C-alpha cells in the first residue's frame, strides 16, 4: 500500500485514516509536501471576430479558479460532463495549454510560466496518456521508435534501448517481439498499452490520464484499469485520472473532484462521494447513472435534473448549477458559494448542502481552495 494510504474501505486502521486525512485536506498544500498543487488556476479562451483586425468579443470560461493538491502515491479523479473543463485543466497541468492566471507547482516549484527548457526535467517526472490512442501515436513510427525516444531522453545508453523497450512492452502486457510493428497493426486496447508504455519510459512519478479507457470496449477497459493499478503499486506512481464515467473513476481513485462549468463543485474521498454526496449536482450525476443490476435499478428512486449545462461563454452568476438545481434559492442566483471544508477532507461549494448534520455544518470552515470571487456567506441547512 502506498504511504499516503488509500481512502477505500480497506483503510481501516486508525493511523492510516488519520494520515490519509492529513494528505486529503487541501489546506496542507502550502507546506510543499504535495507532489502537485494548483492555486486559483484560471483558463479563459478568447472568442475573436472581425475581418482584418481580430476583436475579442467574449471568453470561454473553461477553467475558472480551480485549486487542488495531489499527494505522492495518490490517485485523484476528476469527473464532470462534457464542457466542464476537466480536459483543459489536465492539459494545463502538463503545460500543453497556457493558463490565464493562477499557479501550478510541481514539488513546490512554480512551473506556471516555466520555459520549454525549464520544463524538460519536469516532464521527465510528469507524463500524460491521452484518450484516443490512435491519434496520440505517430502512425509513421514503429513501436520501437515510439518507445526509444523517451528512453534516450532519460539517458539510457544506445545499446540498452532495445532491451529496455522490450521490457516495457512486456510490462504492459504486449508481445516484446512486436517492436517493429506500426501502431495501426494493434487493436485499440493494445494501442492504449503502447501509450502507457511510452509514458512509463521516462520513469515518471506522476501520470496524467485523460479519459484513458473511454474509447475501449468494456472487457478491454477492465484490462487497462487493472494494468494501471498494478503499475501504480510497482512504480509508486501518482495519477490524475480524468473521466466522464463516474463508475470507472470510483474504481481507480482515492479522492475525486467533481467539476461543473469550469468550477469545482465537490472534492471528496472516493467512497464518501458516493455514500454521502454533499452537492446537489453530485447527487444528480449519481442518479443519472444506470446501475447494471435490474433489481437495484427498480428499487432506487431517481430524481433527474432537467436541462443541459449552460453556455460557458456566459456562465450564470452565483452558483453555476443554480439554473438546474432543485434546491436553488435567491442566494444561489447572486452569490458564488465558497468551497466549504467539512470533516474528513470533504469539500463542497454549495449554499444548501445535503447529507450534513447541524454539528458538521458548525464545524465546517471556508477552504483556502475557495474561488477568489466567492462570497462570505456560510452554507445553511433549510
Amino acid at each position, binding site marked *: 500500500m502506498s504511504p499516503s494510504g488509500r481512502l*477505500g*474501505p480497506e483503510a481501516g486502521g486508525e493511523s492510516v485514516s488519520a494520515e490519509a486525512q492529513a494528505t486529503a485536506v487541501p489546506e496542507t498544500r502550502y507546506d510543499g509536501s504535495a507532489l502537485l498543487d494548483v492555486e486559483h488556476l484560471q483558463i479563459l479562451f478568447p472568442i475573436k471576430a472581425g475581418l482584418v483586425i481580430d476583436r475579442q468579443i467574449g471568453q470561454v470560461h473553461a477553467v475558472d479558479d480551480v485549486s487542488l493538491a495531489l499527494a505522492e502515491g495518490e490517485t485523484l479523479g476528476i469527473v464532470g*460532463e*462534457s464542457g466542464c473543463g476537466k480536459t483543459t485543466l489536465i492539459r494545463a497541468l502538463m503545460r500543453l495549454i497556457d493558463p490565464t492566471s493562477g499557479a501550478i507547482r510541481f514539488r513546490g516549484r512554480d512551473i506556471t510560466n516555466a520555459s520549454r527548457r525549464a520544463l524538460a526535467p519536469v516532464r521527465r517526472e510528469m507524463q500524460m496518456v491521452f484518450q484516443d490512442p490512435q491519434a496520440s501515436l505517430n502512425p509513421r513510427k514503429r513501436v520501437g521508435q515510439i518507445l526509444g525516444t523517451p528512453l534516450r531522453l532519460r539517458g539510457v545508453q544506445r545499446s540498452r534501448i532495445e532491451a529496455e523497450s522490450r521490457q516495457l512492452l512486456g510490462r504492459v502486457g504486449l508481445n516484446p517481439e512486436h517492436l517493429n510493428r506500426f501502431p495501426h497493426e494493434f*487493436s485499440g*486496447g*493494445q494501442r492504449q498499452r503502447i501509450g502507457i508504455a511510452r509514458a512509463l519510459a521516462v520513469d515518471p512519478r506522476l501520470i496524467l490520464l485523460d479519459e484513458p479507457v473511454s474509447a475501449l*470496449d*468494456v*472487457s*478491454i*477497459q*477492465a*484490462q487497462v*484499469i*487493472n494494468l494501471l*493499478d498494478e503499475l501504480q503499486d510497482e512504480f509508486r506512481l501518482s495519477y490524475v485520472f480524468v473521466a*466522464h*464515467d*463516474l*463508475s*470507472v473513476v*470510483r*474504481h*481507480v481513485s482515492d479522492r475525486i473532484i467533481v467539476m461543473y462549468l469550469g468550477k469545482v463543485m465537490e472534492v471528496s474521498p*472516493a*467512497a464518501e462521494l*458516493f455514500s454521502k454526496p454533499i452537492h446537489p449536482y453530485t447527487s*444528480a*450525476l*449519481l*442518479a*443519472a*447513472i*444506470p*446501475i*447494471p*443490476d*435490474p*433489481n*437495484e*435499478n427498480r428499487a432506487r428512486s*431517481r430524481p*433527474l*435534473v*432537467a436541462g*443541459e*449545462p449552460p453556455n460557458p461563454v456566459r456562465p450564470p452568476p452565483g452558483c453555476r448549477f443554480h439554473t438546474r438545481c432543485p434546491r436553488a434559492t435567491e442566494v444561489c442566483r447572486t452569490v458564488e458559494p465558497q468551497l466549504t471544508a467539512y470533516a474528513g477532507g470533504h469539500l463542497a461549494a454549495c449554499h444548501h448542502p445535503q447529507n450534513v448534520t447541524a454539528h458538521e455544518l458548525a464545524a465546517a470552515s471556508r477552504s483556502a481552495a475557495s474561488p477568489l470571487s466567492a462570497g462570505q456567506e456560510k452554507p445553511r441547512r433549510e
Partner: protein
Amino acid sequence: MVEDSLLRVEDLGVSFATEDGVVRAVDGVSFTVHRGEVVAIVGESGSGKSVSVMTLMGLTRGPNARFEGTAWFEGRDLISAADAELHKVRGAEIAMVFQDPMSSLDPVYRVGDQIVEQIRVHEPGTTKAQALDRAVELMERVGIPHAGDRLRSYPHEFSGGMRQRVMIAMALSCSPKLLIADEPTTALDVTVQAQILDELRQLRDDTGAGIILVTHDLGVVADIADRIVVMYAGRVVEQGTLDEIFYDPQHPYTWGLLGSITRVDRDRSQRLPAIAGQPPSLLAPPHGCHFRPRCPHAFKRCVEVPALIARVREAPGHLDRCWLSLEHKRGLRVVGDQIGLVSGEAVAP
C-alpha cells in the same frame, strides 16, 4: 405469444467480400421482438450488433454483401424485399435512431424542414402547414423547449442531447411500430442520457411500439430492456429476459461481460475480473465456439459449434451457446456480488 411478435429474425447471416477475404459479420442470428417490448442487443465492437440491425433496414445492401435467413415483419420478409418495398417500410413502420445525431441530420437544412420532409414523404396528402404543426407537436413531445422557434434552427445550433431528441422526433413522426436505436445515448452526457432513456420508455408506453436497443452499456440495458440478446463475434451466444441474463447468466462470455464493468454502487475491489485477450478477427474466426480462445473453461468439445438452445428447464426462453453442463457451470460461477468471474485467478479477496 406468437400473435404478439412484431419482428421475427431467423438465421440471419451477413457476409462482406473484402480485399482480405470474406468477413462473416453476422452468423445465424435469430431473435424476436414483441409489441411494447424493449430488446437490447449487447456486445463489443465488431460483434455484429450494428450490422444485424442495419441489415433489417436494408442499409448494408451492396455489391459485396451477401445475406441469408429471413426477418419477418408484418407478413413481409425484410431481407428479400425489393428496395422499393423496403423504402415504404423504412421510416414509416420501422424507424431508426443513430449513435451520432450530428452526422445523421443534414447540416444545410433547418430542423423543422427535415421533420416535415419525413412526414410528407410517407403521408403524401399532408400539406406543409399541417406537417409543420405535427413537427412542433413532435418536438414538444420529446422535450424540446420553445419548439415553435426551434423549428427554424439548423442542427449545429442544437446541443448533442437536443439533436438526439430531434432524431427521436423524426423517428416518431410516422408512429412506427418498431424503433431501432443504435447506441442512442453513447455520445451523450449521463444526465442527458437519463432524459433520453425516459423518452424511449415513454414512447413504448404510449404507442406500444417495439424497440430494439443496440448498446454496449449494460447499465443502460438494466435500466430499460425487457429482453437481452448477447452477441459475440457475429453470433448470438445467449439470450433471455433481463433477470435471466443478469442473475442467471449461462455463457462464460456473459459472465465476463458482467464482471468487467466498473460499478458506481460498489467499492473498489483489488482487480476487475477482466476477460483475457481480444475478440477474434472475423476473417478467420476460430473453429467451433468463437469464444473458445479466451474462455478459461474451454474443453475439447468446444471445437464444435454449440447450438443456441434452452438449457435451463424452468426458463424455456433462455437460450445459450455453450457446451458446459449446467452442474459444471453452477460450480464455476460465483454467485452474488461477484457474479461474472471468468477465471479463478481474478477472484478478489
